[in-house]
């Protein structure tokens, strides 16, 4: 079929219609020492030490930032062992035995409205840094770095779009934690002295838009917070597409939103900013969808960070059917497949998707051009693939593969079932050489 893909079809997602289930806290949680962005870390506690909930138990050293590590349960550090991280690497995890008391660390204390009012932008960013806020839509980019931009911010976009199929975490989160999201948004507006903030929600969720509007009228009237209905296509949640739909600004490839006076944060991140500033509390649990066509009882769960994937699968009723399964942290379009069930859900994990392996066979490319029609960056994946096959670096560079953000639409729309995105990824490596 020669056609542009806009919607990822065939997925009826109704998870957000049902309440999120508080997931049982496992006996042992696992906290990553290192992660994909931070190759080095220091640990402040030793085996046998007692730790409190939200206690700082270490610090990760990134390339240009340090990030404190917080415990997500209270209990005893058992040992440090290797597990798979969502980035696909085998890294050290702290295994903490849960004493089921959830003793809060004394560092977590509420701030009074006067104290919050008195905070300057730099103080707020420091608090956000100490609470290890990162992009919780999946990127994991440190929020305090993002907020340190020198550009004048005119618009704040709160991203609640979730355009990937099977994901419904943020939709439910917006219904449940509306006040926290608005609180975080108001803090961001104060920080940047910005009068325009928009919560971006897909237009296919009128109930969420109505709920948010109602809450704005109730708690933040005249504050400048509005709800922007977004179109229902993939990749609407990509910042370039979101900025274009919400504000009509066309971003050039390679530019970031602050260059256009736009600050965009995920809804969950906005809520953690609120928690950090008002309660000095880092994130220790989050909403996660456990969904996909290979799971028995798909649901949204409120999961303690550090829960292994296998526990999530058991919570959702186990595997459905005998087909080969693919486990994914993140969405089925962009998320990487997990090497085994032993992977640990870290705070940037939005969902666990269990898919049956695609049975579409790989056939020769017939240059139907669906990938070219579908590419949101206007690239020509089929030509990139041909250049990669002949390892022609001159040609690869002419095709600008570095503009690719790996949305996966080329593989999705390929009539012949070829994994075109893999070739583009290889082209990106070759173009950088």
């Amino acid at each position: 079929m020669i056609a542009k893909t806009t919607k990822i079809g065939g997925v009826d997602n109704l998870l957000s219609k049902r309440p999120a289930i508080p997931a049982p806290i496992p006996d042992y949680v696992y906290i990553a020492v290192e992660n994909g962005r931070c190759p080095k870390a220091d640990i402040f506690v030793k085996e046998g030490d007692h730790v409190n909930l939200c206690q700082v138990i270490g610090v990760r050293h990134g390339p240009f930032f340090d990030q404190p590590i917080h415990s997500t349960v209270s209990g005893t550090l058992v040992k440090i062992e290797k597990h798979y991280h969502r980035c696909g690497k085998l890294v050290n995890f702290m295994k903490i035995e849960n004493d089921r008391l959830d003793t809060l660390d004394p560092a977590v204390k509420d701030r009074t409205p006067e104290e919050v009012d008195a905070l300057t932008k730099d103080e707020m960013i420091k608090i956000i840094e100490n609470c290890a806020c990162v992009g919780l839509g999946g990127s994991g980019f440190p929020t305090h770095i993002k907020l340190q931009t020198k550009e004048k911010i005119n618009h704040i976009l709160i991203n609640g779009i979730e355009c990937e199929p099977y994901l419904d975490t943020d939709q439910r989160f917006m219904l449940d934690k509306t006040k926290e999201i608005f609180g975080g948004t108001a803090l961001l507006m104060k920080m940047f002295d910005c009068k325009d903030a928009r919560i971006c929600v897909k237009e296919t969720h009128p109930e969420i838009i109505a709920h948010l509007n109602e809450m704005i009228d109730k708690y933040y009237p005249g504050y400048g917070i509005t709800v922007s209905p977004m179109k229902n296509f993939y990749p609407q949640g990509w910042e370039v597409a979101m900025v274009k739909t919400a504000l009509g600004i066309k971003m050039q490839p390679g530019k970031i939103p602050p260059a256009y006076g736009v600050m965009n944060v995920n809804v969950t991140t906005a809520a953690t900013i609120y928690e950090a500033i008002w309660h000095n509390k880092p994130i220790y649990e989050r909403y996660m969808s456990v969904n996909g066509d290979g799971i028995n009882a798909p649901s949204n769960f409120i999961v303690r960070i550090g829960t292994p994937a296998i526990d999530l699968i058991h919570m959702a009723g186990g595997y459905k059917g005998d087909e080969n399964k693919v486990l994914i942290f993140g969405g089925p379009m962009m998320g990487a497949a997990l090497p085994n069930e032993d992977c640990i859900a870290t705070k940037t994990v939005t969902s666990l998707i269990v898919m049956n392996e695609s049975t579409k066979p790989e056939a020769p490319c017939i240059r139907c051009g669906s990938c070219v029609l579908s590419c949101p960056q206007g690239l020509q994946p089929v030509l990139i693939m041909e250049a990669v096959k002949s390892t022609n670096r001159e040609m690869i560079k002419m095709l600008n593969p570095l503009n690719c953000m790996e949305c996966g639409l080329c593989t999705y729309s390929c009539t012949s079932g070829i994994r075109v995105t893999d070739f583009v990824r290889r082209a990106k490596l070759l173009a950088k050489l």
Partner: protein
Amino acid sequence: MQLVKETAPHIKRKDSLMWMLLNVIIALAPVCIWAWVAYPLSALRIFPLSVATCLLCEFLFILITKKDPKAFKIENILSSIITALIYALCLPTDLGFASGTGYFVVVAGAAIGIILGKLVFGGLGNNIFNPAALGMIVVRLFWGGISGNAAGTAGIIDSSITTGATALAVENFTTVPLLDLFIGRVPGALGETFHIAILIGMVYLLITKTIDWKVLVSYLGTFVVLMLIAGVVLQAKGGELFAHYALYQLLSGGVLFGAVYMITDPVTGPVGDPARVLFGAFAGVVTVAIRLLAGTEGVGFSILFANMIAPVLNYPQWSSSKWKKWHFISAGALAGVALLIVILPLALR
């Protein structure tokens, strides 16, 4: 059950190459059936021969290159059947079967077409030329005189009096009513005259999105616009009504058949909207040029010429999925060339 480690994305669109190829065969069915009803004896000889030849060549190719009969997949079968059917529908109805040479011609043309047009480049998906068009051209050039029809020397595709008279060779072409041309009550190649069946196939192909409408529209659009201009020029010189002339040109020969089933073949065309529009327009200009300047049918040649420039249109340095300045410049240059070398000589004649 096993866990699979694979790269993102993990979900694929619900379509397949097999269905795309099947759709082409379904779209060819009305033409094939009509051809079989109209010329049962020729169809019964040509279809099985050409299908068998193409399948055999493809199978031998797979056996030689892959050394594994299991590599002969359903896609290979379907694509070679498509080639065989299109090639068969382009052949004249009378190839001299009485003397036996006709059988040889069908097999030789099919074999040369699929081997030189497709297999030497690496088989399905790698070919530069449309194998059916190549086979048809080979038959036309090598065995052009074999047809029993009167105008055989004019070439096989236009072996009939009417289609041979496409252009200016015969001035009184209007003797054939347009309605007869439309429903195929004229002699011609096995399948190219049945325009109702071709239009049914076209609608099916467009609905199922098996072909890209941009190629089709730009090819037919260029052809019709240029023929209208030529018609105006001829009318000014005392010829027929220009609209009648253009319609006559559109309905005679293999324009519609080539536009629906051959020029739209994605493998031999470029990718990206601007390149596809330019590709179709180029083929349209070449068809008009051959018809008006050489006075003979030009659809088959124009498809092969356009196939040759497809890689150029997709050369990475200037290929783009969005309309760029050079696309408009090329389109303008193409229009200028068309008017200069095709319409101007006509006006000066």
